[in-house]
């Protein structure tokens, strides 16, 4: 049954108690995302140090369980990675949601991969894919410190 795959315990738990909520201290990059269809909003904050390592990452926003859990898990996994590693993880995640059955990144430990894989159930729900990907697209934008709003439509 697909619903059980979509709403796994870990998703519900992250959805209800999202990690890294708020503005991370001393952030030096940020970006905003918006999904006009559902009204979801997300604001991602990044603190990159001189070695381009993500020292801090957090988000603010509101949305469904999927989008909250996705942002929460994302911030958890990206923290401590350097920019290149982070971008590989992002690419890997977006690939998984759209088509690839598996994660290929070598920058994630097995338990990290398991956590991320929990979000793959959304693949069966095309209208909900955007809920899962909004924060990730916004993270890409944050790395570039883009001031334009990220929109998920089309």
């Amino acid at each position, binding site marked *: 049954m*697909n*619903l*059980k795959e*979509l*709403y796994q315990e870990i998703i*519900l738990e992250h959805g*209800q108690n999202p990690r890294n909520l708020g503005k991370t201290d001393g952030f030096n990059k940020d970006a905003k995302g918006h999904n006009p*269809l*559902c*009204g*979801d*909003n997300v604001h991602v904050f990044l603190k990159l140090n001189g070695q381009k390592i993500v020292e801090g990452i957090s988000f603010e926003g*509101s*949305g*469904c*369980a*999927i989008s909250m859990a996705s942002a929460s898990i994302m911030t958890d996994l990206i923290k401590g990675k350097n920019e290149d590693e982070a971008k590989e993880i992002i690419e890997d995640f977006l690939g998984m949601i759209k088509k690839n059955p598996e994660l290929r990144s070598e920058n994630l430990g097995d338990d990290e991969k398991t956590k991320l894989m929990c979000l793959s159930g959304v693949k069966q*729900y095309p*209208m*909900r894919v955007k*809920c899962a990907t909004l924060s990730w697209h916004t993270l890409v934008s944050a790395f570039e410190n883009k001031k334009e709003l990220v929109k998920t439509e089309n």
Partner: protein
Amino acid sequence: MNIDLVKKEFPIFDEKIHNNDLVYLDSANSSQKPKVVIDRINEFYTKQFSNVGRSVHYLAVAATNLYENTRTSVQRFINAKDKNEIVFTKGATEALNLVANTLGQNYLQEGDEILITELEHHSNYVPWHFLRKSKNIKINFAEINEEGEITLEEIEKKITSKTKIISVTHLSNVTGAILPIKEITELAHSKGIIVVVDGCQGAPHLKLDMQDLDCDFYAISCHKMYGPTGLGVLYGKKKWLEELPPYQGGGGMINEVKKDRISYGDLPNKYEAGTMATAQVIAFDQSIKFLESIGIDNVVKHEAELIEYGQELLKKNNSVKLIGNPKNKGGVLSFTIEGIHPHDVATILDEDGVAIRAGHHCCQILHDKLNIPASSRASVGIYNTKDDLDKLDDAINNCKKIFNLK
């Protein structure tokens, strides 16, 4: 036709959704179509197709007559005084754009005010917003009360000496509040104010009488009235339709065309530029006749019972919070579930075959006011039954279980 048997007239209910019966509670978005309407489209394209009004050959003459028959049926259905007060558009949104645009061209001056409400659908706000930009007019908002209603008193309070137009929904697509249009019109007309009604939700659920309501314009979406997509109706008082300029220009709406000047045709042609939605207009005649065969009074009664029943059911369901509690209510049950986002609700309900809508329902102003980003909405039509609402309730309980709520 007996309303309890109506569901059988809609072929879609023979389909299975995720192996479940379809519990369609999204009629405020768009209604399903009865077989007579679908068959009429089929028959017209198969045996009778022609463009209308322009050729004198057999098929064209027949199609033109069929097309005009629908205009007569709409006139009868909404009790308009004159057949030529009925203009076909591509939807209610276009109808409202037509009204705003043409009033903007000829009637409004810089500084004039338009009064709308916090309940308005974007289709009854954005067209006026365009005038805010282009003509420097002001838009005021009548506010909802605790119950999600707009009262006559609130309207009266918000009218100023500069108010030229009041544009309001007949029935809110979120709270279900039915506005006192007749009283608003009386008040407005006593002050020389034009009344425009967004009748998208009014038309499928209420008995309409334009001469009684006395509003100046009334916009209808045919696809919400068991009719085809791509069609709407604008009712406009003759004096306005005659006085206002045309909206779109093209074939069929002209009288004389010269290199240096153009004069426009009479009503209703003036507002029906280009090839119209011929097949849809012709099929819509069947939608009206279908509703008439059930009897509007029966529709109103049936839906009132459903809403009453659903409201009681959802009130008893803890975690569920209904949006609005208007005395006069129709068609929709909007709600939130504490701890579950509406999009999650809609996805989970869908798995049980229960189709509802989640989001802001094109009413961001209202959702801002209620301080919620989105809501869930179950809306009913003539084919729904109490059983459908029981299934809604069950599906909500299932949803709560998945989210570990009790």
